[in-house]
C-alpha cells in the first residue's frame, strides 16, 4: 500500500487547527510566525508517530522536518515507504 500526500496533509492540518485554533497553509513555517512554540514540536512528533504508525528517530528528529505541513507530510510518506 502506498500512501498519497493529500490525506496525510489534511490530517496534519486538522490536528494543527484543533490544537492552535487557526488554519495553516501547507507551506507556512509554523515556528517562524510565532503561532507555534518549539515545545509544541514534540507534540507533533508524538502525534505523527501514533497516527501514522511510524517511528521518528535519529537524524529525522530535527525541528526542520516539522516546520511546515508539507515537510511533515514528506517525512511521513518517506518513513511509511521505508517500512514496506
Amino acid at each position: 500500500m502506498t500512501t498519497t500526500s493529500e490525506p496525510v496533509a489534511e490530517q496534519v492540518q486538522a490536528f494543527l487547527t484543533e490544537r492552535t485554533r487557526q488554519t495553516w497553509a501547507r507551506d507556512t513555517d509554523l515556528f517562524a510566525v510565532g503561532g507555534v512554540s518549539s515545545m509544541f514540536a514534540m507534540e507533533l512528533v508524538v502525534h505523527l508517530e501514533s497516527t501514522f504508525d511510524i517511528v521518528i528517530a535519529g537524524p529525522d528528529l530535527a525541528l526542520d522536518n516539522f516546520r511546515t505541513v508539507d515537510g511533515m507530510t514528506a517525512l511521513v510518506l518517506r518513513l511509511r515507504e521505508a517500512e514496506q
Partner: protein
Amino acid sequence: MLREEAEDFSLAVLGAGTMGLGISALAVGHGVPVTLVEADAARARQAPAAVTAQLRMAQLMNALPADREYGELTVTGSLAGAAGATVVIEAVTEDLTLKTKVLAQTAALTGAGVALVSNTSSIPIDELAGYLPDAARLIGTHFMNPPYLISTVEVVRGASTGEATLSAVTRLLGVLARRPVVVGDGPGFVTSRILHPMINDAARVVQEGTATAEAVDTLMRECLGHRTGPLRTADLIGLDNLADSLRVLAERTGDHRAAPCELLLDKVRDGHLGRKTGRGFYDYGKAQP
C-alpha cells in the same frame, strides 16, 4: 570533544525529579554514563522513559552533539549505586536535613577525590559543607530547567571548596558543553536570590487581584524583555520547589518579601505544582515532561 573524554566521567545523579531527570538527560546525551539514584520506587520506575523523552526533545531542538553516542543510564533505588562515580550531583528535594544526610552518606561511599556537587537553589554551600568530613569536596552548580537548553551554569564556590573540586566540575561542564560562571556563596547565590523573590512578587500581584497571571507575564515579557514571564517560569520550576527555596531565602536573609505568598502556598497545598502536575498558574491539561 572525543567520546573517550566523556567516558572518563561516570556521573551519579541523586534524585529523579525535575532536575535530576534533566541533568541525567544532558549527561547521557553528551556521552557520559549516569547512575541515577531515586528513593521513590514509582519515580524510579518512570525515570528511564522520562530521560528518553527529554533526550528526544533535546535532539529535536538540536541541543545535542550529533557525533557522540549516548552514555549508559542506570537507575537504582540505592545510594550504594553512587559508589563508583567520579562526580556526584545531588538533586534531591530542597531541604537542609535531607540534603546533608544524603551528602554525608555519599561522601562516605565514594573516594576522597570524588567531587560532590549540590544543585541546591538557595542553601549556602558552606552551610551544607559544615556537615561533611571534608568540606573541600563540596561545590554548587545551578543547572536550570531544562538543562539541555540552558547552556550557562551558575557554579557556586564556597569558602571551603577545594581547587581540585572546582577543576573537576569545570571539566565535566566542558564535556557537557555548558559554560560555567563561577560566583561566591550566599543564600540563593545570584540567580535564585534575584529571581525567586521577583516571582513571589508576581504571584502576590495576582493574589491581590491587581492583574491576572497572563497579564503579569505579558507585561514582563513584552515591556521588560523577560523570556517566558515569571509565572510561566514558576510553573516550569515547580511551585513546591519554589516555595521551599523562598523559605530558605527568607530564613537566611530576614527578608519578609522572600517568604512564599499565600497564593503560592495554596497552590502547593492543592497539589497544583505547575507543569509537572499539569496545573499551576496555568492549565496544561496533563502533566508535562
